[in-house]
């Protein structure tokens, strides 16, 4: 699998996939997409990256352990639910804020943070599994 073409194209593909995954995650509330799919795409990009440049490079690029990222995702999702307690509403009641930026109105909401949490969990868990598996097969070669 370690062909020159693959190794050259992989960074491009990985970068595109990552940007696309974030785009898919953020547009998810109104268009097809969402945190789960975004996380899957991002995890797949990590698997590709790992195949092309080795697991060590991926781990270095990620800086955090993928499982830590997943843990942060669960925390973020949970915390986005707690926010509603401060307006005396039941746990996980969504809160919407509209930021008026002149021409556009940017909606910020707790479901968005929740979805980002989902993204991080899926991304972190699947990448950690994929990376661990790749690491094993690397060890064999």
């Amino acid at each position: 699998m370690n062909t020159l073409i693959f190794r050259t194209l992989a960074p491009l593909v990985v970068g595109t996939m990552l940007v696309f995954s974030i785009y898919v995650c953020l547009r998810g509330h109104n268009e097809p997409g969402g945190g789960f799919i975004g996380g899957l795409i991002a995890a797949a990009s990590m698997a590709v990256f790992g195949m092309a440049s080795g697991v060590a490079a991926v781990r270095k690029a990620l800086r955090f352990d993928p499982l830590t990222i997943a843990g942060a995702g669960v925390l973020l999702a949970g915390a986005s639910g707690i926010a509603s307690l401060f307006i005396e509403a039941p746990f996980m009641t969504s809160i919407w804020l509209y930021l008026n930026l002149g021409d556009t109105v940017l909606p910020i909401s707790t479901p968005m943070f929740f979805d980002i949490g989902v993204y991080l969990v899926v991304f972190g868990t699947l990448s950690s599994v994929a990376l661990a598996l790749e690491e094993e097969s690397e060890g064999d070669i």
Partner: protein
Amino acid sequence: MALPSLDASIALVALFPFLAAALAPVLHRLTGAFSGWILALVPAGIFVFLLSLLPGIVAGETLRLAIGWVPAYGLELSFFIDGLSLTFALTISGIGTLIVLYSGSYLAGHAHLGRFLGFMLAFMGAMLGLVLSDNMLALFTFWELTSITSFLLIGFDHQRMAARRAATQALVITNIGGMGLLVGAIVLQQAGGSWDLSVLRAAGGMQEHALYGVILALFVVAAFTKSAQFPLHFWLPNAMEAPTPVSAFLHSATMVQAGVYLLSRMTPILGDTPVWMALLVSFGAVTLLWGAIGALRQTDLKQMLAQTTLASLGLLVLLIGLGTSVAITAVMVYFVAHALYKAALFMAVGAVDHEAGTREITALGGLAEKMPVTFIATAVAVLSMLGIPLTVGYFAKEEMYLGLLSGDWASVVTLIVLVVGNAMLGGVGLLVMVKPFLGEAVPTPKTPHEAPIAMLAGPLLLGAAGIVAGILPDWLGHDILAPGATAILGEAVEPHLSLTINFASPLLWLSALTWVLSIAVFRLATPARTLLRRLSHGLGWTADTVFDAVMFSLIRFSGAVTRALHHGQLEFYLVIVFSGLALALFGPMLALDGFDWLWPTAELGAWVGFSMPDVRLYEWAIFALVVIGLVAVLIAPSRLAAILALGVQGAAVALIFLLFGAPDLAFTQLMVEVLSVAVLTLVMTKLRLDIRDHRPFEDWGRDGVIAILCGAGVSLMLMLVLSGTLDTRLSDLFTATSVPMAHGSNIVNVILVDYRGFDTLGEISVVMGAGIAIMALLRRRRTKA
């Protein structure tokens, strides 16, 4: 009693420590040695805020705040402050401030100090939430949180076997009680009709209810495990494996008092019956004496204190069992006195250990010269423990004796138990005060010197508080004891503490007798210890060994079950799983006559009018792709090719989803397909199987039959589902409300992150848990290989 509503600041009291806990490691990394000082501001702020509520509470108010948490299950974050919860909360946050400060210094330079402070603050939050909760489910949640955080704290030094074992033991024992509490709360809700303790209390007790016995038993088990009553006491002395600040906090004033708090809280609902009294008084008395004897047997200062904690908990439970207004006042004053002196003593002992290098009472002596401040703090605390006038401990002892002067034989027996128990505790206190500090100086592992200010502040301030409370009996009685006792009993209690000394009163003579006996215990400590140790050696087993035996047989039993069910042959598991699936698909269909709908009937024209369905060309192409993928799987020359072929038909299915208006599903299917091909390929190369599949014919046939059955089952089930009319109420509701209510037009996503966000939260937790499990398995393989 009026119940004025309150702003959200009360909820912050319980939630803020958790926030601080999350930030603690980062803060420690940034500020290093100062993190203890900074983080101590959190409990200090809470303490000041709670103090500002005191005048209102003294005036007879109660405060309540309810936030819906999961309203569907009756779970509310409702907080309730009356005299009882305020006293506990003040103790927790006040002592907590000093403990955080102390920890920062005690573990200074420790690599994981930030984590430690985080655990400590999280524990504090759990404890505050526990005593402030009104809703029983919230109370249970916080109760379990104290178990978990204390598990982390006790096992903080996790590289030591003993610490891990003590942590596990505490968790196992207290969780048995936690389960009791949950079931008890549910039964109580069924019987009493409310989750809220304040409502239940106002509605009157459950003593006449048919389920009273069950509820009582469950709550008593919960309280006894947490407050370490005999015979479930053994985890508490073992928990001394924790670093000293933990012992000072958990095992003097907070965690072990949770059971005492629960029993006090339940007194109006479950108390004042012969069973209640008999249970609490007898177990309390046994625990009191057992702990006192245990304390005499020890030479480790921390162990001695731990055993006296056990005894004090027994004493408190006994007093709650008595249940008279004087006894309940005694509970309040003894709780305050004990919290003050025990935390001070633990901290002082920690200072000795920290600076002299040992805690063995036989290896210490003459420290007073080198550590005068520590000695003064210890002495003040021990005087309060002895119940000398001008300390708060004096009133504690007076009150408990006063409650038992009625003269019938039961109170005489109880009185004797109390005097003997107090005398032994006093003797142990004298040992702690005199042996290490006075007499000849003994060489110690480290050259002793005074501990840093952050470690001295706690014992000194707590000792001072004990004296201030001791010389201001009117304030103590009016502001702390009366509101607390009133809250427990549900009727007004008048404070009657005073410093007047009356020689005609038997109380004075009982106190004097206790002191004389304490000195006798102190004098006879060494021979008594030898005797007790010989006796326990003769006995040969303890509750601790029983616990070990139970745990090990449990492990053996689960090992046997695992070996029977989980023998490690993947092939066999898969056969079982898929046979199960086939059964689950066909069983109900056969039982509910589902096939009748699928049979062609006369009205359908019996195949005569069979025509090609109206399907477009590209749709045919996709179906062809699926079929090609399937055929390719079946005829694939190697495993790898089969996996790739499977991916082809999966992608084709994704295309079908896309065409028929489920782009989200298609997207996910496609990504899952890509990832599963990648992961499977990696696993396959790892497993180094034969590239070809050589199965014997009978295996091949069996697997084929199962595969066909499952596939046919799913298809038939889908046809059945589609032949019925679709109930569109839910999807109509989602379509209609998704934009106005959830501001999103992608219904799938709106359902996932908004309407059913709670489920998704659970699911991502499961995903994460599965990830951790997979990583653990992979790591295990790697270390084996």
